[in-house]
Structures are given as structure tokens and as C-alpha cells.
């Protein structure tokens, strides 16, 4: 009964979303106020039904209702409750339901917090979000119903893929989905602006915090995924340039560009067309990623069960959403006139350079991801494009970006001079150069250009950001949150860069065979294999080795690498023993038994690897702080009063006196 309620609630949510998608939009063009005012209640109702639907599926999982095909395929009674819950989004159907619910959640949040947005604009934004959700729910109901029942009810379910029975992967997908779907808010705002033919500073202020939130979710989601891959896959790798990872990286890069471009649109009324295009692209790339992951078009380690019918549906959905938005863009973009002019040396130009480099990076990732498909389509056979390619192209681009980034803080709007900026930046520039040259020399006594470049980028960005915030004069507590957010996020980037540089160039690994009591030394640490035992936990049994790690004869830590067995049908899993540290990780993976007392181990020394994710956390925090800046709240209250006027005046808006130069 409960699954049927869930199914029914999903159908209801679809109907509500249809209403939300059609009437307010229609009303916004015909001027029917009743229809316009349907947007907000519909957004709340849609979320309500989707939460019910989601709760029903959750109940089916927690109560081990194996009459539901999806539950039977992804859960069993032995799994701990937390993994029964996360199993809900562990496979295709359930993850779609989560998508839809998160999308409705964003819609409802916009409806709730967006009281100050002119009702015409709000109606259009919510309508577009409703239409997007219609697509997802139709997709679910037509090809991937999570509530489908089984005729022969099995006593026990299959289990969730053991790889996914992990806390990191329990929260990683929801965060990523929040990010992907969150980009739909900026997308909808952009669409609404093009429909209205008007885009002003207030628009940018409404769109900015939402874009920031979505970007923050993406940032945390990607960092978490990378961290998960690091400790769970047993290879000590943290980024593989797999199509699925690329699918999450592209919207992140474009989202980063969008955040910066929105700043110009808000402060200087420039880059309007460009901002709108970026908003469309960020969400389009999220959708494209979904298509690539779920259609089986590309081979990926993480691919979902591929089904051509699903692929075709998503493709059609993609055509409708992206196609219509770009069509609208083609015909309406010229209406969005930018006004602020600026000279070659100015903050605007700096941000444009930032945007250009970011877009080239995103295009490179897209090109590399799709290139095998292009070659195949041209009938030239099969090729692979992997990490060596991406590293070779992205790293130099990133270095240029980082170099420009440091100057960016000091650039003035509208017009600046090279001399003035250099006067402000020569100290951090010189200091960063000094650090980059001296530190590696002291640590390794060798000269490696890659280390120098990486360290220079990291210290240059962070020093320049720090000195900038100090130079602002006022007490740090009086500075706007957005300023703090920006500095913290950029320092986060710097920390990630240093982490990537050091761990890529100076990590060491060794495969060893050890008998109990034997030791092996790697990178100054001595690993001693003490003993091995069998343990049994709810959902798996394991061999667990005890390994002491000492340095200069002193015991530092003991790690417990495991090899887990999740029962019949599942491959054995490696659970690495990791001693995490600020400047290094010691990473031990347990292999197989080789004779009586001997086991194989893989040892890693990973210097500064934590910095990669530490930087990610700082980036996310910075974005969060910026989103909470009080000027976004102010604009909400202020525009409450003007919204009524906007509603009435828009239909007759002439090209306003603000129009001037076009971007």
C-alpha cells in the first residue's frame, strides 16, 4: 500500500508541476494575476507531494519491503539502517526521485525566500523550474519507476553495491545533485530575464546567492567524491578524469565563471548577455552529465545500468530544455544591453580573462570527454582520452588563471593602470617567488620547475588575497561577508593547488610481501606487519591486519587495513588503513595471503594530500559566506515595495535610458 501511495504522490506532484509550469508562465504574458499568483502555492505543493513520495520509498527501504523491485535490487536486511537509507539513491530510479525532490526543494526555497522578487519574474522563474521537474518526473514514470512491484516477492534482497556501502558515498550524491539542480535556479532566472527582456542589478542580486549555494553544493560534492575515491578504491588516487567526474567538473567550472560574471553584472551592469549564457551553460552541462552517465554512451567506471530507452528520453529532454533556452537566447539576447564601459586594464577585463580561461578549461574537458565519440562517429575507429591528456592541457591553463587571479583582487572597476596594480602587488609577487624557489630547495635540494610553479601559484594567490583584505583598511569584522567569502574561497583554491602539486610530484608507493613481524621502510617511515585477524560485522566479514608505523624508531601510529567480503555475489573489497596528517597521509592497502604468514601490502606515502580537500572545504565555506552577505537580504526587502510597480510596468517597458553599449 505504501509504495502505491508513493507512486500516486509522484503522479500528483507531476500534475502540480504541470500546473506550475504552464499557468504562471502563461499568466505572465497575458497579465492574468490569478494565474501568476499560482506559482508560489504550486511550488510548495509540488515539494509536498514529492516529499511524500520520497518518504514512501524510504519507508519501503527501511522496512525491507522486497515486493518493490527497486528495494529488492539494492537493499537487504543485513545492511545497517544508514545504508538502507542511502541505498535509496544508490541506483538509477531512486536517484532520479532524489533529483526531482531536490529540484522541487530549490523551487520551494525560491518561492519562500523570493517574496521580494517581482511577482512577474518569480512566476516565470518558478514556471521554468516546474517545467524542468515535469521532465524528470515523466522520465521516472515512463522509464524508471522506483515503485514498480515484483510478482514473486523474494525473501531477501540483493545488496547495495559494497562500494557504495560507505558513509562518504551516502552523502556525496545528494550534495552533487543539490549542486546540479541548484544550477537550474540561475538557469530559470536567466530564462525569465530573457522573456522579460530586462536584466538589471537587482536581477543579479537575486540570482547571485542561489548560484553561490548551488556552487557550494557542487564544490562539497566533488571534494567528497574525490576523498571517497581516495580511501575507498584502494589506489590512493583522488581524481581519475573519468567521464562521470568530468560531468561534475564542467558545471563547476562554468558555475565558477558564472559567479564572477554575475559580480560584474551586479556591480557594473556589464556582461549581461554573457552572464545569461553562462547560466544556461552551467545547467545544460549538468543535464549533459546526467545523459552521459545514464545512457551508456561513454564507458565509465561509475556508469549506471544503461538502457537505450532511458538514453533516448534524456536526449529528447535535453533537446527541449537546452534547445529552447538557446533558441530564446538567440532571439532575445540582443535585448539585454550592457551599460558599464571599461578600459583594457580594469577589474572587468580581469574578470573577463578569468571567464575566458575557465571557459577554455570547460571546453577542454568537454572536448576530451566527447572526443572518442567524435572519432567514432567519423568512422575513424576507437581511441581513448585519459588523464595524460587532461593534465597536459588543464594544468598550464590553470597556471595562467592563477597568475591572473592574484592581480584580480587589486584591480579597480572601470579603469586602472598597470603601474598602480604593480605597486600594490610587488610584495606578494616577490614573496611568492621567494617561497617557491627556496622552500623546495630546502626540502628536497633539487630543482623541479613543476614544484616551483605549483608553489608559486599557491603562495601568490594566498598572499595576494591576505594582503588585499589587510589593505582594505577597516576592521576585519566590519568587512562585508562577501569580501571574507571571496578571500577564503581563493585561499582554499591556493591550498588545493599546493596539495595537488606536492602529492603529484612527491608521493611514493611500494608493493611489498611481508610476513608477520617483518618491516619495510618507505619515505622514512617503517611499516611493521604485526598480525592479522578475522572480524565479522553486520554486512560483511573481513581480514584485518594490524600494522605499526614508526619513524626514527618511535611508534607513530597503528593502521588497520582490511579486506572485506560482502558475501556471495560481491567481489572482495579493500578498505585501506590510513593515518591522516596535515602534511602527509600514510596509506596501507591489504592484498592477498601469500603463504602461511605472509600477505601482500601496498604502501603509500602521500605528502600534503589532505590539502586538496581542505582547500575544497575552504572554497565551499567561502562561497557560503558570500551567499549570506547582507546586501542580498536588503535587496529582498527593498524590492518588496517596488515589485508591484514592476509587474504593471514591464509590459510597456521601452528600451530604458540605461541602455548604451552592448556586450
Amino acid at each position: 500500500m505504501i509504495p502505491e501511495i508513493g507512486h500516486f504522490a509522484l503522479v500528483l506532484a507531476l500534475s502540480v508541476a504541470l500546473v506550475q509550469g504552464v499557468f504562471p508562465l502563461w499568466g505572465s504574458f497575458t497579465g492574468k494575476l490569478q494565474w501568476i499568483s499560482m506559482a508560489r502555492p504550486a511550488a510548495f505543493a509540488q515539494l509536498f507531494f514529492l516529499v511524500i513520495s520520497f518518504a514512501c520509498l524510504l519507508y519501503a527501504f527501511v522496512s525491507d519491503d522486497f515486493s518493490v523491485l527497486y528495494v529488492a535490487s539494492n537493499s537487504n536486511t543485513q545492511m545497517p539502517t544508514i545504508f538502507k537509507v542511502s541505498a535509496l539513491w544508490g541506483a538509477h530510479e531512486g536517484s532520479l526521485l532524489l533529483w526531482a525532490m531536490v529540484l522541487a526543494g530549490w523551487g520551494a526555497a525560491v518561492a519562500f525566500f523570493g517574496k521580494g522578487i517581482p511577482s512577474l519574474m518569480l512566476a516565470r522563474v518558478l514556471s521554468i523550474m516546474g517545467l524542468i521537474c515535469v521532465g524528470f518526473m515523466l522520465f521516472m514514470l515512463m522509464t524508471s519507476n522506483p515503485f514498480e512491484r515484483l510478482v514473486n516477492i523474494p525473501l531477501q534482497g540483493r545488496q547495495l553495491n559494497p562500494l557504495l556501502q560507505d558513509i562518504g558515498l551516502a552523502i556525496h550524491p545528494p550534495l552533487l545533485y543539490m549542486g546540479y539542480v541548484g544550477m537550474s535556479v540561475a538557469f530559470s532566472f536567466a530564462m525569465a530575464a530573457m522573456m522579460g527582456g530586462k536584466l538589471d542589478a537587482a536581477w543579479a542580486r537575486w540570482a547571485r546567492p542561489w548560484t553561490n549555494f548551488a556552487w557550494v553544493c557542487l564544490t562539497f560534492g566533488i571534494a567528497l567524491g574525490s576523498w571517497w575515491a581516495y580511501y575507498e578504491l584502494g589506489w590512493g588516487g583522488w581524481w581519475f578524469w573519468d567521464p562521470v567526474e568530468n560531468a561534475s567538473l564542467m558545471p563547476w567550472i562554468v558555475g565558477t565563471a558564472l559567479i564572477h560574471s554575475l559580480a560584474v553584472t551586479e556591480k557594473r551592469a556589464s556582461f549581461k548577455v554573457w552572464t545569461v549564457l553562462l547560466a544556461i551553460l552551467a545547467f545544460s552541462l549538468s543535464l549533459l552529465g546526467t545523459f552521459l552517465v545514464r545512457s551508456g554512451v561513454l564507458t565509465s567506471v561509475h556508469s549506471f545500468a544503461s538502457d537505450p530507452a532511458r538514453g533516448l528520453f534524456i536526449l529528447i529532454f535535453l533537446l527541449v530544455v537546452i534547445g529552447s533556452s538557446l533558441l530564446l537566447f538567440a532571439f532575445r539576447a540582443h535585448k539585454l544591453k550592457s551599460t558599464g564601459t571599461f578600459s583594457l586594464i580594469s577589474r572587468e577585463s580581469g574578470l573577463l580573462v578569468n571567464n575566458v580561461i575557465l571557459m577554455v578549461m570547460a571546453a577542454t574537458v568537454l572536448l576530451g570527454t566527447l572526443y572518442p565519440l567524435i572519432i567514432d562517429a567519423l568512422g575513424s575507429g576507437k581511441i581513448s582520452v585519459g588523464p595524460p591528456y587532461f593534465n597536459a592541457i588543464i594544468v598550464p591553463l590553470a597556471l595562467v588563471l592563477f597568475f591572473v587571479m592574484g592581480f584580480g583582487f587589486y584591480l579597480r572597476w572601470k579603469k586602472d593602470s598597470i603601474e598602480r596594480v604593480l605597486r600594490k602587488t610587488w610584495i606578494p609577487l616577490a614573496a611568492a617567488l621567494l617561497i617557491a624557489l627556496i622552500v623546495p630547495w630546502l626540502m628536497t635540494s633539487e630543482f623541479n620547475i613543476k614544484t616551483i610553479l605549483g608553489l608559486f601559484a599557491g603562495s601568490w594567490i594566498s598572499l595576494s588575497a591576505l594582503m588585499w583584505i589587510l589593505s582594505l583598511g577597516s576592521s576585519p569584522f566590519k568587512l562585508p561577508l562577501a569580501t571574507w567569502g571571496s578571500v577564503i574561497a581563493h585561499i582554499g583554491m591556493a591550498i588545493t593547488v599546493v596539495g595537488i602539486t606536492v602529492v603529484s610530484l612527491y608521493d611514493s608507493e611500494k608493493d611489498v610481501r611481508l610476513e608477520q613481524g617483518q618491516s619495510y621502510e618507505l619515505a622514512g617511515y617503517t611499516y611493521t606487519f604485526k598480525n592479522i585477524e578475522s572480524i565479522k560485522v553486520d554486512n560483511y566479514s573481513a581480514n584485518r591486519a594490524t600494522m605499526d608505523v614508526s619513524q626514527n624508531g618511535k611508534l607513530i601510529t597503528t593502521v588497520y587495513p582490511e579486506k572485506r567480503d560482502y558475501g556471495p555475489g560481491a567481489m572482495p573489497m579493500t578498505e585501506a588503513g590510513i593515518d591522516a596528517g596535515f602534511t602527509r597521509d600514510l596509506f596501507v592497502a591489504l592484498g592477498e595471503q601469500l603463504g602461511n604468514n605472509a600477505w601482500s601490502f601496498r604502501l603509500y606515502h602521500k605528502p600534503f594530500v589532505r590539502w586538496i580537500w581542505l582547500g575544497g572545504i575552504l572554497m565551499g565555506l567561502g562561497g557560503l559566506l558570500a551567499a549570506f552577505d547582507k546586501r542580498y537580504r536588503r535587496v529582498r526587502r527593498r524590492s518588496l515595495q517596488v515589485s508591484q510597480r514592476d509587474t504593471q510596468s514591464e509590459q510597456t517597458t521601452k528600451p530604458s535610458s540605461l541602455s548604451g553599449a552592448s556586450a
Partner: protein
Amino acid sequence: MIPRLFIIAFTLLLFASAQAVKIEFHSFENKQQEKLYLQLIAELRCVKCQNQNLAESNAELAKDMRDKAYQIIISGGTRDDVIKYMTDRYGEFVLYRPRFGLKTILLWVGPAVFLLLSLMFLIKLIKKQQKEPVAPLSERDRESVRKLLDSKDT
């Protein structure tokens, strides 16, 4: 129902290749050989797997291919020898670092061309917007309007 379950079972198999570390021991005559071996198995693709290099894959075929690479290196073969051996048998699909050639020219040169074009476009655009007539409303006017709006309720 059966085919659906089959698809799910199949997906689980796809994931399987990403699990449990398989550890082998190879001894090399010198550091260069070891470095070359590690570099090659990281850059060669396991043809049977979803998207994994030889180093990370536990598939039998990946192990055989690693062994083959090891044999070639240990008997004095160079990087090119290993790559030639693998591409002769599996085509360019095994190379994660696509060769530079007619087929891949867009891949390798594309980003640079795109960067140059965008920068040129950028400079043109900045120059162009500077020449256009200044907006009728000056910055000072707009700032005052903004202040007025902002101050209404704060």
C-alpha cells in the same frame, strides 16, 4: 522482470573491476625500468574494463597485459616498443595519451586555438565598447539611484 534484474546484475559486475587491490611483485634491473613500467601501466588502458588503466584494474587480461609490458621492458624494450606492441594488437584504444596526428589534431590543438580566438575576441570587444557613446546615465547618477533605493528601508 527477469531481463530487468539481469541488467542490474550486469551493472554490479561492471563495478566489480574497481575492487580489491591486486598486488604483484616485479623486480627491475634499475630505477629507470621501474619508472617506465609504472608510467606505462598508468597510461595504458585495460581494454576489457569500463574505464581503468592497467595499473588499477584487477581484470585477468589487465594482469596479462601488465606482464607483457614487464617482459618487454625487462628484455631491454623501450617505451615505444611497449606502445607499439599494445597498439598493434588493440589499436589506439589502449592509449590514454592519444597520439598527436591528423585524427587528434583538433583534440590537441583545439584548446589553444579556442583560447587565442577568445582572447582576440575579448580584446576586440573591450576596444569596441570603449568607443561606443557613454550611457546617458552617468555612473554617479546610477550610484545615487542605487543609494536611494538601498536606503529606503535600512
